[in-house]
């Protein structure tokens, strides 16, 4: 089996419609292989959590097929549950119980008992640096500690597949770094397959070996972080032209230039790509000047996942995250 990649999660044309109707997931397909960290990246309301909840047997899909560990979630939910760990978006720690009690109950619900369970709990408390706080009520824990306890609970029964829904949202940078190291270690040492959702580009970039960008219930791009970045040729130029009218005029000007491509208008911002941003910039500015346009702020940056997001959705990531959710298709800027 060494070297042979085995699909452990297979999602085919998954759809989920809530009454309203709100189409949370509109036909998502992807495959996750054994031992990889797969990231679903997208803004809030993109359908990431709904997808993970279906994979974790919590929600029933409206249409489509989902196989987890070779089992159909629709017909073998009980079997799937024994093989997966699920860590929800917000902490689900029982605040009245101690860390140890939280872990013991979680283990018992998986049928673990006695000495084996107690040893596993001690092991996890040590692993997640919770031993000293183990017998304190969880409501006294910091956000980072609660999150680590969530993770420990998700791992109590040694699942082969772990679902992490927004694992670091709301954490301070230090706690986030600790959690990132844990996730990386789990995937490297334990050969765990991890499916994580995140709306942090840097998180997906750092942790995931493959990323699917989710937007409005669909996957709009998929690949390794490097593959995705290579799809963008060159550096990104961002020019502030003051108004949308000016930006649109600027787009026409840039379109006529050689070596400038992937031109996109976003409000009063004009985005473009050039093989070598630094060299292209004077030419770009001269051309704009001849057309009577002045760029206020100008930036040149190396490609990032943010650029991929912009390219596939037509919006910068920060802007999409600010929009109310769920969004309707027709509201998307052209």
């Amino acid at each position, binding site marked *: 089996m060494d070297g042979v990649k085995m699909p452990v999660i297979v999602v085919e044309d998954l759809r989920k419609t809530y009454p309203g109707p709100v189409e949370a997931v509109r036909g998502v397909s992807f495959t996750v292989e054994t031992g990889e960290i797969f990231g679903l990246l997208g803004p809030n309301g993109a359908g990431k959590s709904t997808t993970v909840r279906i994979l*974790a047997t919590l929600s029933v899909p409206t249409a489509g097929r989902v196989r987890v560990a070779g089992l159909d979630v629709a017909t073998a939910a009980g079997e799937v549950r*024994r093989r997966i760990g699920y860590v929800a978006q917000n902490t689900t720690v*029982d605040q009245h119980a101690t860390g140890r*009690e939280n872990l013991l*109950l979680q283990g018992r*619900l998986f*049928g673990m008992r006695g000495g084996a369970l107690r040893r596993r709990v001690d092991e996890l408390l040590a692993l997640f640096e919770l031993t000293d706080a183990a017998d304190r009520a969880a409501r006294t824990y910091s956000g980072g500690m609660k999150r680590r306890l969530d993770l420990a609970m998700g791992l109590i029964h040694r699942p082969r597949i772990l679902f992490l829904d927004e694992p670091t949202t709301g954490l301070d940078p230090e706690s986030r770094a600790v959690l990132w190291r844990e996730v990386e270690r789990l995937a490297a040492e334990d050969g765990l397959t991890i499916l994580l959702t995140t709306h942090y580009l840097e998180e997906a970039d750092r942790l995931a070996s493959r990323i699917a960008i989710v937007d409005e219930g669909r996957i709009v791009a998929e690949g390794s972080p490097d593959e995705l970045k290579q799809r963008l040729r060159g550096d990104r130029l961002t020019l502030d032209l003051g108004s949308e009218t000016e930006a649109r005029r600027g787009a026409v000007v840039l379109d006529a230039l050689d070596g400038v491509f992937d031109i996109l208008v976003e409000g009063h911002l004009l985005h473009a790509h050039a093989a070598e941003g630094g060299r292209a910039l004077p030419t770009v500015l001269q051309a704009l000047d001849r057309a009577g346009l002045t760029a206020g702020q100008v930036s040149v940056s190396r490609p990032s996942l943010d650029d991929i997001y912009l390219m596939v959705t037509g919006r910068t990531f920060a802007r999409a995250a600010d929009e109310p959710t769920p969004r309707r298709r027709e509201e998307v800027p052209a």
Partner: protein
Amino acid sequence: MRPPRQSQSAPDMLDPRTRTGTMGFITDTVYLTGRLYRQTLRLPVFLMISVVQSVLWLLLFGQLFRRVIEVPGFETTSYLQFLAPGIAVMAALFGSIHSGLGMLSDIERGVIDRFLATPARRGALIGARVAHVATMATVQATLILAIATALGARPGGGGAGILVVLLAAALLGSAFGAVSNAVSLLTRRQEIIIASMDFIVLPMIFLSGIMMTPALMPTWIQRVAAVNPVNWAVVAARGGFEGNWVGVGTHLALLAGIALACAWWATRAFDRYRATL
């Protein structure tokens, strides 16, 4: 000879029992009920309040209506003795009607989702809530009867009679706890749970024989009381406590029936909640 079975995956080996049949349901319910008990015990203030409240009712109503037994129709020698099983039933009611608030809080905090992502029996999540209120009701009833006895009440029904009081309290608590959870799961609004439960429980208390013997009730209240589960619990509990066994079995059976029906409704409400996820 059959070949050895294929090796099972790690989670199966960790699982020392087969999770089929009622065994899995019972053990899951026991562990989940343990969690609810822990919550109750970690908030001793609330525990104290509910105990003190029951004792106050016993003493207050006991004093207020002390002379009511002088009215012909009361077949008891002491109002306290008459009242004690009724207060045990009332404590079961007040202890159970807000059980749905805990369910709502568990839903909102994602605890229910976390449990649903384990192989735990779905029914055990409701079963634990009902078991929690039912056992709490028996603890409170025991306390109330003990205090009443210390103050001079004499249980004519002996140990069996006391068991009947506890059983009646447990069954009524189960029924109302289940209804509270069903309302919680169907509405998922704290205000609606509190308002609706309080709205139904007060009339049910006053349209029962908790404080007044049925013989002295207006005919229409007697008729309502006859179909009022709170009154069924009072009739059974008082019959047992006084040692007057007529109708005790019937009313316990009726209570068991309504408790089962309510538990079934709560389970259906839970299924419906899960279908909306």
